[in-house]
């Protein structure tokens, strides 16, 4: 039996850029920070705002403390009444109550704003750091972890932490302060009140432990189920036309039903858990309250405290029900947020770039670019003391590459592309074309051999320089959400509108852009005007022209556009590549025919290289490909 070797399977799927959801085995998720490290980062953020933090918490403590005067004042009224004082005597504590109310109100307003300011500015600086680091990660690392990992962190974890900072943190702070200070208040009334109030604590402790043990896995399962339900709905609704055409309605309704019901069942289990939690806390409330009342009874009978003090103690404890429930309930939210925070810190803690080898910083300031003048280093680029390519040529020397050890995708590949030359890379699926594209663009590092750009080893170039030298456009189109002009300016932030229009014109996209509802100001991408695949690729080519790199690599860039779109894009591609060194992974052989040179790749090796015409005469693999391609295109008139 043909035991289809796993080697070729993996090679092919890797070449196709395929990420298989099933094969998580070799996947290395992005790191998660340890608890200690997470705490250290939070402390660091707090330290930067030390003064602000001290003032915020001081004000909040003062606000809570002033609120605690209320109960003893009410107790004083009780004592006055009991002492058969003149009804007018009640006025003084009442006036004090009003003063306390106003002071507490003002202090709370200021305190809450200050705590929010503290939390929000910490959050903002954390999320900015996170996005900065996330966008600077080497692609190989992101892909190794699966693109879902980073996306989940940037959407899920950032918003979990944000909500915690916005909603849970102020509530938790206020509740904790109220609890702490009320206990202090009880002690001031009489220390024995504190002791009996603490009788509720064992029940609360056991309840929280009972709850947390079940809550974390249950809520995690619920989030997964809700995510699966969402994914299924997107699948089904997004593919509704296909479902109808293939009459798959019943199957899909059943899929949605089972996913939705799974989410419902977990939600109901979560409700049972939560009600169980509060139900158990009711027991603690009863124990505490009756203990305080009994203590009051005993102390009043023994003449240790007045009836007013006993009343104050009971009111104190009754007012604690709310804050205790809130604080204990939020423990779980705090844990979820902490887990999210650890995943964010895990990414922000990654080293900025792979350390460049120290040995080759020696070559003195090489001339900028012989081929193109590039006097505009990017705004915050590193000082230009490092290695710089001298021209726009590309050399691939004895390059081998394996996604998994022992399963070589490329073997001893030799390529030379002169500055300004356009070379087409041709070969069957799985031959390793995309892998070469990624290696030259610096997405992956070759396992053996070297990529040389303008005389400089790509492995030793500063990442900034590498990216300014080579651009890679793949069939993966993404239109950035927002005005179309903003999308283009990602490639060149300082471009004027005129410049943008000129570039759009150059790639032949100006006509349709002007026809959009608001021209270049039209909001496109997610949630905006939907562009066709062809239009999105047009934008990608416009970005390429704006970024203006000396070397451009195009991988399957016109593949998905349909036959009519593909031709439009070929014209646009030619315009965008004019004056650049270009490596094109070609599916449509017209691209190969118009290239300066064709390189044929078979099973990870270069088998043929030469101009289109010479290769046709050699009767090799390219000639076969061309025959398949051109036979039905034979034009008897030509």
């Amino acid at each position: 039996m043909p035991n289809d070797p796993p080697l070729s399977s993996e090679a092919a799927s890797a070449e196709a850029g395929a990420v298989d959801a099933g094969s998580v085995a070799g996947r290395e998720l992005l790191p998660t920070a340890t608890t200690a490290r997470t705490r250290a980062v939070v402390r660091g953020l707090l330290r930067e705002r030390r003064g602000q933090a001290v003032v915020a918490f001081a004000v909040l403590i003062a606000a809570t403390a002033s609120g605690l005067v209320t109960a003893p004042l009410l107790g004083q009224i009780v004592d006055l009444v009991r002492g058969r004082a003149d009804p007018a005597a009640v006025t003084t504590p009442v006036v004090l109550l009003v003063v306390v109310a106003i002071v507490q109100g003002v202090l709370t307003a200021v305190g809450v704003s200050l705590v929010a300011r503290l939390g929000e500015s910490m959050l903002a600086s954390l999320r900015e750091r996170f996005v900065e680091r996330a966008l600077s990660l080497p692609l190989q690392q992101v892909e190794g972890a699966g693109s879902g990992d980073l996306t989940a962190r940037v959407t899920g974890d950032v918003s979990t932490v944000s909500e915690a900072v916005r909603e849970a943190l102020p509530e938790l702070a206020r509740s904790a302060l109220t609890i702490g200070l009320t206990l202090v208040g009880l002690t001031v009334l009489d220390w024995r009140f504190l002791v009996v109030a603490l009788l509720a604590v064992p029940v609360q402790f056991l309840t929280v432990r009972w709850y947390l043990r079940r809550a974390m896995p249950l809520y995690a399962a619920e989030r997964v189920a809700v995510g699966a339900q969402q994914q299924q709905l997107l699948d089904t609704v997004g593919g509704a036309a296909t479902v109808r055409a293939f009459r798959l309605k019943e199957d899909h309704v059943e899929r949605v039903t089972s996913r939705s019901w799974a989410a419902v069942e977990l939600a109901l289990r979560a409700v049972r858990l939560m009600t169980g939690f509060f139900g158990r806390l009711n027991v603690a409330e009863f124990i505490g309250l009756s203990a305080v009342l009994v203590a009051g009874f005993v102390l009043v009978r023994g003449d240790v405290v007045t009836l007013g003090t006993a009343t104050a103690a009971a009111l104190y404890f009754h007012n604690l029900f709310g804050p205790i429930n809130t604080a204990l309930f939020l423990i779980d939210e705090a844990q979820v947020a902490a887990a999210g925070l650890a995943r964010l810190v895990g990414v922000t803690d990654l080293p900025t770039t792979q350390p460049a080898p120290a040995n080759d910083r020696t070559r003195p300031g090489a001339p900028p670019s012989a081929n193109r003048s590039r006097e505009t280093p990017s705004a915050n680029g590193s000082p230009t003391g490092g290695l710089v390519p001298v021209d726009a040529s590309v050399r691939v020397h004895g390059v081998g590459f394996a996604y998994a050890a022992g399963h070589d995708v490329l073997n001893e590949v030799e390529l030379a592309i002169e500055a300004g030359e356009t070379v087409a890379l041709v070969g069957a699926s799985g031959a390793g074309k995309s892998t070469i594209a990624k290696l030259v663009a610096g997405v992956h590092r070759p396992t053996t051999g070297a990529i040389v750009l303008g005389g400089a080893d790509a492995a030793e170039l500063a990442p900034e320089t590498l990216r300014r030298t080579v651009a890679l456009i793949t069939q993966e189109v993404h239109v950035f959400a927002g005005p179309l002009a903003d999308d283009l300016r990602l490639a060149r932030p300082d471009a004027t509108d005129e410049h943008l229009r000129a570039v759009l014109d150059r790639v032949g996209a100006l006509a349709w852009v002007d026809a959009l509802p608001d021209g270049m100001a039209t909001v496109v991408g997610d949630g905006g005007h939907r562009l066709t695949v062809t239009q999105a690729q047009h934008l990608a080519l416009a970005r390429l022209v704006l970024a203006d790199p000396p070397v451009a690599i195009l991988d399957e860039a016109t593949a998905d556009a349909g036959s009519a779109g593909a031709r439009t894009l070929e014209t646009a591609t030619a315009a965008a590549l004019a004056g650049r060194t270009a490596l094109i992974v070609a599916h449509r052989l017209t691209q190969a025919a118009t290239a300066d040179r064709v390189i044929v790749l078979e099973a990870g090796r270069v088998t043929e290289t030469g101009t289109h015409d010479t290769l046709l005469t050699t009767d090799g693999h390219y000639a076969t490909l061309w025959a398949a391609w051109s036979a039905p295109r034979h034009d008897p008139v030509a």
Partner: protein
Amino acid sequence: MRSDAPSGLRVLGRSIAGQRWLVAGSSLLAGAHQASEAMVPVLIGVIIDEAVSTGSTDALLRWIAVLAGVFTVLSVCYRSSARLGERAVERAAHRLRIELTERILDPRGGAESGRLPGALVNIATDDAKRVGTVNMALPATVSALAAVLVSAVALLNVSVPLGLLVLLGIPPLLGVAHLLGKPLERRSEVEQDRAAHASGVAADLVAGLRVLKGIGAESAAIGRYRQISQESLSATLRAAGARGWHDGIMLAATGIFIAVVALVGGRLAAAGDIGIGGLVTAVGLALFLLTPLSIFAWANRMLAQGRASAGRIASVLAAPPAVVPGGDRLPAAPRGRVRLRDLSHGTLRGVNAEFAPGELTAVVTPDPAAATDLLACLGRHVDPAAGSVELDGVPLSRLDPGEAHTAILVAAHDAALFEGTLLSNIALTTPDPPLNGTSPGSGGAASGGVVASEAVVASEAVVASEVALETVVASEAVVASGTAARAMAAASADEVARALPHGAGTVISERGRSLSGGQRQRVALARALAVDPPVLVLHDPTTAVDPVTEARIATGVRELRRGRTTIMVTASPALLAVADRVLMLSEGTVTAQGSHTDLVRDDETYRSTVLA
């Protein structure tokens, strides 16, 4: 009478009525719960009065026992009412979700028009949940009413003037809170929008990470995000300040209100009109009553939200169908003669054409819109503005759209793949994981190699998991049955399967995003071929496939569809070359027809469209 198209209110009403027993039970228990909560401050007053101030142990024990009883009722009622209520919420939302899915997938179509998939999914999740939540708002309202009632009785029992002061004083207090809260709510909406925008931008940038890296635009992107993050921060801080003042003013107003209650109560107690316990009860209830009244406000908000959401759900459920079903039936085995008679729709201007049974015809058009319009008419996504598409002499518009789909399958260029194994995406008739008892080994000789190699590749998965085992067993059965294997071979999808780690048993995720464009196309083509419909319409099936494979696919389709009507809308010369006949559709009408070679020789428009 109104049609059966549901309005927002009807959706809401149905969702409550569907769970009426749960809602009623939950309401009853919630009422008992809040009434018990109201009893707690009353009992504190009583215990102070009857036990602490008198020193009677008997009274203490008696009233503590009563307190224990109240807590038991409170706790049990709370738990059961919340559980019943949430069950009603979740069930109602679930039902709406299914109802929406069924409407969206209805063969008559029309529900998606003008809505993005994301928006529809939001309606099926968030809006459905909000409508369901109304089932919790009702018990909450009942519970708040019960609490107010019990408190009112207790307060008036203590003292009529004091009771009236508390009961009449609280509504204005909440009015103040409401007035203060309004601008805050608006502000926090703006703030949430901004925050959502910031996180949306971050997610968008990460989604386009490869594109950013490809052109070295990371630092520009980081700069842009930082700016948006800072804008979001300042909006948030303004809102946080507003919230702080809202909380502060509410606290102060409540405090002042309590002071007034203490003043009046204290004077009444000093004058001997009420007992000390009465004073304590009044103060306790004044604080407690804020809870039920804020429950009213919450329930009211949920009801308003629920109504808005119900309106959105109703607009999907009531969306007019894209096509109206007719009553005619197709013959049991359609011969597959398709005729376009004066077909006008969109860019089509009176197209006349006939596709004979068993013929392989290609349609070429330089205008992508014309292709889209033609495919929409053939697939019966729309009924043509004028003229008709006939199948075996029956106009499609006189058929049920579901029935039309059984006879004519239009395989769209952007057809979606679904989550599941590669095989379950192709062999649709077999559910996943499928075991329909087809005996292995009955396959044709042509597919023998496929069977063997796939079984071997897939057998590696057996070790990995039991689930995989089922898939493998199933794949053997299905491949052996032949149809799927032949379709896969014709579409060169067998190559795709071989390249995947678990062969045809490999799970495809995210609507086929885990495959490359060319792989996705071949799997989608294999699926369409495997259905083996009387009439198959293919739209640009090979745009992302290399020329050698494309040529192989052209031959494969030609062979597999022998004797069945096939229409290919394409400009690919490889496919055109295998067609029996090619129609040139230009300016909305058929301008030329003939073989590919003839048209290339004779038709200038054709040449420029096909041979770039």
